[in-house]
């Protein structure tokens, strides 16, 4: 759905992006990670041509993006930036209506869509439509930002650290909701984040960049299990084995028929949480609510 081939952009100061090959399949979310200044945002802005490449090709939905009118191209791509970028002089409803209005939808269709899309991101339209952006919390602002990006139902979304300005407690919930929403709508997503946990949670694939180059592009499980080099391993963190266990659930692991004592855990529990429960209880086997038990052996084997 999104195809970058040999894309290069040099900034006068340095780095930028060099000979980048990156593909995101339809309906998938690719999480771009890497240290600050490695070119994540530049890559995102190359896709909607806020930055023009020096070389290379960019295809979106089979079309050559570099031959399209950039303004038209951008109206077909959802874009959410870290600070939300809401228009402070427009109410929430008008903010969400931005792209449909640019596309010339009639007023009734716009109003209906604004309601629909606010509800999608978990905001009651009646309560929020007429508020000003400054009357919202950080999390609500990000929700409105996502609603605005979804308003014209674009197949592709670009998210640049969309949860950066949300306090950590709310962030986890917002991440889960957005993940479920994007999966349900089958959007193709390029997500920039510097948070490995967020990338692992939301990304079908991880693309790790360093100094404008793509170092490794793989599924989270693959990258966490087999980092391409020491830099990747360091970036994923010393606890990457634990992070990886968070990708699997008890239902994915081998089950022991024998019963184990203690409070049972549901099958949907991640192996990471199951391991934590074993440590906490000082046991090597846990009962599973759906039947049987999970042993430490089984957790270790699913590495």
């Amino acid at each position, binding site marked *: 759905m999104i195809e970058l081939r040999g894309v290069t952009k040099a900034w006068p100061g340095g780095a930028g992006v060099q000979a980048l090959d990156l593909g995101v399949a339809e309906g998938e979310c690719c999480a771009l990670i890497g240290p600050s200044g490695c070119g994540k945002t530049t890559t995102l802005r190359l896709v909607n041509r806020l930055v023009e490449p020096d070389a290379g090709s960019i295809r979106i939905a089979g079309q050559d993006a570099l031959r399209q009118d950039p*303004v038209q191209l951008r109206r*077909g791509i959802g874009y959410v930036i870290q600070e939300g970028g809401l228009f402070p002089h427009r109410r929430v409803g008008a903010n969400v209506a931005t792209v449909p209005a640019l596309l010339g939808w009639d007023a009734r269709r716009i109003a209906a869509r604004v309601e629909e899309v606010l509800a999608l991101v978990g905001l009651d339209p009646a309560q929020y439509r007429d508020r000003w952006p400054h009357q919202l919390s950080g999390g609500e602002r990000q929700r409105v930002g996502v609603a605005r990006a979804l308003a014209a139902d674009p197949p592709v979304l670009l998210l640049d650290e969309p949860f950066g300005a949300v306090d950590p407690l709310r962030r986890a919930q917002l991440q889960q909701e957005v993940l479920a929403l994007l999966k349900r709508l089958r959007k193709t997503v390029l997500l920039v984040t510097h948070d490995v946990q967020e990338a692992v949670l939301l990304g079908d694939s991880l693309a790790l960049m360093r100094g404008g180059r793509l170092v490794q592009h793989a599924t989270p499980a693959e990258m966490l299990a087999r980092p391409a080099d020491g830099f990747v391993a360091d970036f994923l963190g010393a606890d990457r084995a634990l992070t990886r266990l968070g990708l699997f659930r008890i239902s994915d692991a081998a089950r022991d028929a024998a019963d184990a004592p203690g409070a049972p855990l549901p099958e949907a529990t991640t192996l990471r949480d199951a391991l934590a429960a074993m440590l906490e209880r000082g046991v090597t086997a846990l009962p599973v609510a759906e039947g049987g038990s999970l042993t430490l052996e089984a957790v270790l084997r699913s590495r």
Partner: protein
Amino acid sequence: MIAWLRANPDAFLDALVQHLALSGAGLAIGVALALPAALLLARRPVLAEWVSAGAGVLRTLPSLAVLAALLPLLGVGFTPSVVALALLALPPVLLHALVGLRGAEPAAVEAARGMGFTPLQSLLRVEVPLALPQIFAGLRTAAVQVVSGAALATFIGGGGLGDLVTQGMALLDIAQLQVGAIAIALLSLGTEGGFGWLQRRWERA
């Protein structure tokens, strides 16, 4: 003073109306030139730098010097006075507008571009609305300068409340001189206060 006003109500009103006409015309022309110029310069940062520097110089020139410089070019009377006042109004409006446009919340401007606003749509629908407080502040400064600057129009035959002062001096009529001086001061204060009130009202809205 009161006696002079009672004796010469028409002379006072004529001077006042003339003063307001001079100020209004000068301000209107200055704004009509400065705002479009600011919009044109908003996308040309280097040129904007140069123009800002020029406007800064124009701003520091004493009003009287500007009047005197224009005298050989435009002669005397109402029109040259309006031209001089427009020149006085131009720098504050232009400079404030440029600062406001440059400072428009970068995230909102980035989002506007990223969602497919054309550069003109972004300028008119996002950058200008976000720069309005600055633009209004420029208007307020310009209005006050023009209203007090119009008192000097009398030196090139432009009329206005300044006439009461110069005539009062020539005739050694202290009452007339005082009426002129106090009216000019009150008008300037009133302009400052009026625009400030408008600004506060509008910010609350």
